[in-house]
Structures are given as structure tokens and as C-alpha cells.
């Protein structure tokens, strides 16, 4: 099944690239980008597949047992725009045009210093015969990195200002995973891309790992009454578990003592280990209590601009503590 899907993706990738994209690169004098763009096409196709799969698999769940029902879904439509732009356009472009060359530059420098990043199969040789197991090991390590990035997103005021763009959604659905400020996406890619480079993830596999992450994240944002139970919620992040993380009252008991809970992206075990696991069997409302009104119920571009405004407010507060921070600067109306 997976092989058949993979073969279809490859067929489309090859045909689109050979007949449309390569001739364009040739005419534009950009043939030196051909291999990167070829990989980018694959990434975008898998991204589209992940979006389609998320819709096919998780939308029925939202229709089946939604946590919330809304008459007006404009904010959800904005998240759909987010998903299409970020998964099919912006993120692949940042990844392949900016970060991959930047990573190569750093990697190249390290070679002249005599450092060649280790490959996990060279350290654990039995993995050589099990590429999928290697893939899973990379996923666990990157997930650990994501847990700590997420902790910092909530801990550092300027990063929280950016990350609040993700959290201010009060109509959380399977589309909400990509509701992120563009700078936050860049930081996320730098963070996980650096970790991937350090542990020797082959450049070609990193995009596929990202797509694996995104499918789980789409599920965890789905508007459905679905929990995995006390034991299950230590194994995989699901809708109920992650909804508690998005709780509008997340700064108050019982959800967390101070700055949030249930930070894990795929594996809740990190929350268990580091004391942020809250197996609360409830479906709280989502959002940020101090953010409401047009600044959260708006289109893509305005919402991005709001993210910049919050960031500037947070930075100004950082420089001069007498200034109000971003939450106070943009009170709920």
C-alpha cells in the first residue's frame, strides 16, 4: 500500500519536474538548483498528501463527536489558508532555498575543522539493515528537541509573543497546526534542522520526518472528543491531551501551575519525565484569555501582522521593563 502510494508520488514528481519545472529552470538559468527543486517538489507533494490524509482521516472525527460546534467558521478558514501556504509554499521554500544552503555552509565549515557528523547507523551498526528503525530513532530524538523548543516558546516572553499566534485560536480544528507566525516557523526549522544536522539525519530525509510530525500534529489539534486514556496519553499525543495544552485558562489550576502543560508534540513521555504531564480528562475551551476580537478573527496577512506587533511589544518590554508587555498592549476587546 505504502509502496504503491510512494510510486504514484514519484511518478507525479518526475513527470511534473521533467515536463514543466526543469524547462522553466533551464530558461531561467537556474539549472544548478535542479536537484534541490526536484526534492522540493517531492516535499510539496508529500505535504499535499499529508494535508489530504489529515482531512480524510480526521475531518470525519470532527463531524462525529466535535468538542465544539460553531455557526460561523471564518477563523477556521484562516487556518486552512495557513495550512496551504505553510505546507505547500512557505515552509518548503524556507527549507530548500534558505536553510538547506545555510546548513550546508555550516556543515562545510565543520569539515575544514576536521569534524564529520556521525551517522547513527555507524554508531549502532544493527540499524544499518533496518532503515525504518533508524527513521524512528531520528524521530524520537527530534521529538525530544521539539518538546524543549515548545517549552521555550512558552517560557520566553518574546517567543511566547510569536507563539501566541498559534494559541489565540478559539476554534481549534485539524487545520490549526499550521497557524504559526512565519518567524516562528523559521525558528522551528532552524531548531530542528540544527538538531537533525548534529545527529546526522541525511538532508534528504529531514523533510519526510517533518511530514511524519505534521500528521500527528494535525490529529492532536482535531476538534473531537477523543482521549487515549491515562496509559494511552503517555504513549501518543492525541486531541484531548493537546487540547488541555491549548486551554484558555492554561495558566490556572488544574491545567498547570504557571506556564503551561502537555508540551509534547508526538511522545507525551517527555511531559511525564519532566513533570509537565497533566492527564486531565476534560475538554477545555481553547485560546489565550487576553487575546480576542478582530486581532484573532482575521485573515492570514492581518494575523501575521498582529504577530509582528506582539513581537515588537514583547521586545520593547524586554528593553524597557516600564513598557507594557504584549498581552497588556493588546487587551481582549
Amino acid at each position, binding site marked *: 500500500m505504502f509502496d504503491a502510494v510512494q510510486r504514484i508520488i514519484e511518478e507525479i514528481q518526475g513527470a511534473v519536474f521533467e515536463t514543466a519545472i526543469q*524547462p522553466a529552470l533551464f530558461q531561467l538559468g537556474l*539549472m544548478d538548483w535542479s536537484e534541490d527543486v526536484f526534492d522540493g517538489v517531492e516535499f510539496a507533494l508529500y505535504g499535499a498528501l499529508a494535508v489530504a490524509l489529515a482531512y480524510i482521516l480526521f475531518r470525519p472525527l470532527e463531524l462525529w463527536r466535535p468538542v465544539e460546534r460553531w455557526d460561523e467558521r471564518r477563523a477556521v478558514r484562516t487556518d486552512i489558508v495557513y495550512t496551504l501556504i505553510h505546507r505547500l509554499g512557505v515552509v518548503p521554500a524556507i527549507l530548500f532555498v534558505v536553510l538547506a544552503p545555510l546548513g*550546508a555552509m555550516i556543515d*562545510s565549515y565543520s*569539515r*575544514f575543522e576536521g569534524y564529520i557528523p556521525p551517522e547513527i547507523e555507524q554508531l549502532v551498526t544493527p540499524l*544499518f*539493515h533496518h532503515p525504518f528503525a533508524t527513521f524512528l530513532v531520528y524521530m524520537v530524538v527530534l521529538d525530544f528537541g521539539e518538546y524543549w523548543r515548545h517549552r521555550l516558546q512558552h517560557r520566553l516572553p518574546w517567543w511566547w509573543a510569536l507563539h501566541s499566534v498559534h494559541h489565540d485560536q478559539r476554534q481549534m480544528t485539524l487545520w490549526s497546526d499550521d497557524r504559526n507566525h512565519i518567524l516562528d516557523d523559521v525558528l522551528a526549522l532552524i531548531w530542528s534542522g540544527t538538531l537533525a544536522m548534529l545527529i546526522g539525519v541525511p538532508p*534528504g530525509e529531514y523533510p519526510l520526518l517533518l511530514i511524519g510530525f505534521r500528521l500527528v500534529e494535525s490529529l492532536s489539534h482535531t476538534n473531537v472528543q477523543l482521549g487515549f486514556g491515562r496509559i494511552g496519553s503517555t504513549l501518543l499525543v492525541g486531541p484531548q491531551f493537546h487540547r488541555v495544552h491549548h486551554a484558555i485558562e492554561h495558566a490556572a489550576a488544574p491545567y498547570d501551575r504557571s506556564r503551561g502543560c502537555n508540551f509534547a508534540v508526538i511522545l507525551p513521555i517527555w511531559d511525564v519525565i519532566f513533570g509537565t504531564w497533566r492527564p486531565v480528562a476534560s475538554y477545555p475551551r481553547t485560546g489565550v484569555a487576553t487575546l480576542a476580537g478582530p486581532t484573532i478573527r482575521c485573515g492570514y496577512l492581518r494575523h501575521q501582522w498582529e504577530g509582528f506587533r506582539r513581537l515588537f511589544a514583547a521586545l520593547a518590554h524586554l528593553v524597557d521593563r516600564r513598557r507594557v508587555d504584549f498581552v497588556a498592549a493588546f487587551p481582549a476587546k
Partner: protein
Amino acid sequence: MLFSSRSVVFTLIALLGAASGMPGAAGATTAVVLNSDDDSLSVIDSQNYKEISRTHVGRGPHHLIETRDGRTLIIAMSGSNELVLIDRASGVEKQRVTASDPYQIGFSPDGKWFVAASLRLDHIDIYDGQTYELVHRLPAVSMPSHIAFSPDSKTAFVTLQGTNGLVSIDLASGKVNWAVQVGRTPAGIITRPGGTLLVGVMGSDYVAEVDPATGGIIKKIVTGNGAHNFLLSPDGKRLYVSNRVAGTISVLNADTLEVENTLQAPGGPDDMALSPDGQQLWVTGRWRAWVNVIELASGSLKTVPVGRSPHGIFVY
């Protein structure tokens, strides 16, 4: 230099290596193809033109060559930073040698030097051809791609895809003799028996003949859009040029450099190899996950599905 003790046995290659020596197998052709995006190695048998095995070989295999004595195949693994040495007769892996992002590789004609170009990380490594000890590492901006050598083994020529360049390097000192602009996105390069260099100008539709002493362009031979790589026939009479964008192979008279024929090779033709009897040209189709097998007499074409982004090919 690190040598890993991992012992992967390419069983099917081994079997085929044995089978090709069996009575009745005369004329049979075996192709080894590196699937660069699949991290695998495919073996194709000419009995039915089907892929008969696909083996995980490491990360990012791109090119492979044989050693001068023909006993060993060397696979350049750009992703896992190593060279995989396989005994050609038995198909058994002999050794893995750590190397920094080896993409294109080649021995100088006298075997004294082994050169690896790192396309992604912009450097060229010069190794001792016997021990694979690193002797020189040169920055090369940008995208050092294909490699050729002077007949006296003193000089390596490397195309720089990202900066339209061609660089001449003194192998003993690791110093640059000259660097020139040779045309938009240069890729393949070969030293002609006559001594001049030919460079496939992938961003255009021609092959540039270059003076190896100065880097000056002598003439341009139009072949097809995306002129990419070269293969010289064993008798030295024919020169095959893969045109990646046009999806064709130009057959040149190696002496006059006139285009004698154009063959269809769809799918982004890249590396090429001739069957032992010289009747077939095997060409990897980089974008379509297949290998083109062209009957040179008739121009008829078969395509054999393999793994993703097939790049290097070796036929025996």
C-alpha cells in the same frame, strides 16, 4: 582515516558475479545502479530487463567507479560520508572508508591520486590513491561537480556548477592553476584522447572544448538542451553526451566532434555505461526512477524501473 568493520554482503551481486561466469551466461549483461534518493543499489539483469534486487547501501549514493585493476567497485556515499569498496568478482563488501561528502570521485590515470568533489559542501578532496589518506582539502565555490584528469596525472579539472566555473588544480601541491568561467552551470567533463577538455554546459545546449593549459574555450558543439555528461566508447571512436533537458543522447565522432546521431533517452538522462558487447547504451533517467537501455544499432529503447533518482551506473 577511519575504516569501519561493518560487513554488508551484496548477496545478489555476488550471485550474479558467479552466474556471469557460468556456461550459458555468455552475453548476459548486469547493471548496478545507484538510487541516490532511495539510499539503495539496484541490480538489473539483461535476461529480462528487470530489477532483480534493491539493497540498502548507505546514505546518498551518487557515483561509482572501478579501481584501475578492475577488482574493486567504489561507491561514493555523499550522505553517510563514506566510500564503500566492493569486491567486483564476489560482490562482497570489503571496506568502508570515511570521506567528507563524496559526490563525484575519480582516480588519476596513474592511480596516485583519488579525488572527490563535494557538491553540497563546496570542497574538493585530494586523497592518496593507495591509502585513501586525505592529502589536500580545497574550498571550491560553488558546487564542485564532475572531475577529469590530465593524461600525465598531474592536474585535476573540476567543474563548478554553482558559479559557472572550471578550475584546474595541481594535484601534488593542491594549488589552483587557473579558474575560468566556462558557461552556464557546467557539469560533465572529460579529457579527450587528443588532450583537450570537453565540458557539458548544462545551463545551455552545447559542449565546450577547452584548452587544458589556459582554460580558454576553443569551440562550442551544440548537442541539446542541458548537455550534461560524457562517455567515451572503449575504441575511442564515439563520444556519447547526455542532454538532460532535451532527454536525448548525442553521438559524436570523437575525432571531429561532429554530431552523428541523436538518440531518445527520456527522464533526465544522466550517467551512461556501455554493455560489454558495445551494442547497448544504458542511461540513468534521473527524474523518472528508471534506466533507459538503448540499442545503438536501431535506437530502440527499453525502460527499466528502479529506485528514486538513479544516478551512477556500472555495467558488466
